[in-house]
């Protein structure tokens, strides 16, 4: 195993362990995501067709809003007792630190998706089991792209006082193409992909992920500098 990969896994494992112990982010973000879906459901009313049509968009909005909290929290944990400073002076490549933080963010996105998908199925009355493989693939690609972007901006804003406001302001415009592709892929997957569009939307997500991971790896070191 290469040194960079070992560092990335060690960092992601550390984040996961700390989060499992403290449960500061998991509980709040999952509850936040679920409450967003519930409130949107109330706003749309009892019309089953309307709820099912809106489900893909609302699912991804809930995942992204909750994901912002989760990825932001992963970096905030590094500011307690100046751990980020210590992390910055370990003799490891900045690429490896980025990969580790992005991996932890990706895992958080998968957990969010795994919990919020059944919530959507229950509240919006959509059959997610029939489209499970395509939905899982969409979640993997969408989660990776979101983690790639949010990790970089979370590191950039973590030392700022207004980070809670700045992080969504910076991330949301960048992830707009990802949101569009993820919602479309989820919509066609739930509909059984009648026109064979799924592949094109997944390809767009792959391209987004590759581009954002490369950009994040190239710029993360600037975000770490004081």
């Amino acid at each position, binding site marked *: 195993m290469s*040194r960079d990969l*070992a*560092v990335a896994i*060690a*960092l992601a494992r*550390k984040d996961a*362990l*700390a989060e499992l*112990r*403290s449960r500061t982010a998991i509980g709040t973000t999952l509850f936040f995501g679920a409450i967003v879906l519930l409130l949107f459901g109330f706003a749309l009313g009892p019309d089953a067709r309307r709820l099912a049509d809106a489900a893909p968009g609302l699912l991804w909005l809930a995942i992204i809003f909750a994901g912002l909290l989760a990825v932001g929290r992963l970096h905030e*944990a590094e500011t*307690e*007792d*100046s*751990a980020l*400073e*210590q*992390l*910055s*002076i*370990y*003799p*490891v*490549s900045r690429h490896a630190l980025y990969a580790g933080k992005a991996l932890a963010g990706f895992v958080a996105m998968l957990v969010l998706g795994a919990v919020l998908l059944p919530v959507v199925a229950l509240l919006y009355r959509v059959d997610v089991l029939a489209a499970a493989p395509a939905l899982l693939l969409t979640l993997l690609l969408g989660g990776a792209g979101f983690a790639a972007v949010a990790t970089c901006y979370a590191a950039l804003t973590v030392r700022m006082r207004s980070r809670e406001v700045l992080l969504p302001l910076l991330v949301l415009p960048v992830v707009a193409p990802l949101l569009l592709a993820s919602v479309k892929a989820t919509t066609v997957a739930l509909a059984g992909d009648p026109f064979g569009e799924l592949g094109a939307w997944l390809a767009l997500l792959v391209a987004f992920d590759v581009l954002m991971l490369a950009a994040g790896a190239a710029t993360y070191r600037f975000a770490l*500098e*004081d």
Partner: protein
Amino acid sequence: MPPTTIYLAPPRRALEAPSAAVVTDLARLFGRSAALAGVTLAVEPGRCVALLGPNGAGKTTLLRVLATLLRPTYGTALVDGLDVSTHAGQVRERVAFLSHATGLYADLTARENLHFAASMLGLPREEARDRIPEVLDAVGLRSAADHRARTFSAGMRRRLALGRTIIGRPSLVLLDEPHAALDADGMSLVSRLLAGWKEVGVTTLVASHHLERLTDVADGTVTLTNGLVSAIDGAGVRGAIGLGTVPAEQPLAPPLHGAVAR
């Protein structure tokens, strides 16, 4: 407490430059305020040098520049002949830094914190497995090894952070107020560590207000005042007082000498 040489390893990389740390005309500005206003110093390998001075004199800034946490605004800083600005990655392989904050993860245990540090420092798994109990013994935390750092007192956290500095094999150790929050035993631990590092050839630069705790082990002292060197005493360290130049009969390491001779 066993002798310090048992658990202190020699530097992984032998020092190649004649000076372990060399700063030349080093200035660091924060906005329009100069934390360092033109410091010129060279510390010999294997020496323990105390950095003294009042609050705001620039001690912490100097250590943070050498630790690659801050870039110099003007001038240069070299560690083992490597510029901290252009060779930060290689400098980090040689330096261990203990700052005011401990940099620990509160939700990890003492053992897990050290294990994470060992992973980041690239210690092989077997070496880390053997080394971590030794380090926990050395800093007096063996019985609290599996307790979360969140439950530790300030002194225990400081001890654990000191343990993190000895888990790797640095050639230059930078300690910023290492005695802070420590009881008498803890202060004695710092003295033993400093003596042990000197024995195995590790250079240490210690910013402290407790000169009485360093007199037995420090080879030399540097006093900073308002971002400039105001006094240099003892052996192992040379430099320029104020904005002056280094006397010709006391040449510094070649890179520094070249810079101040112009």
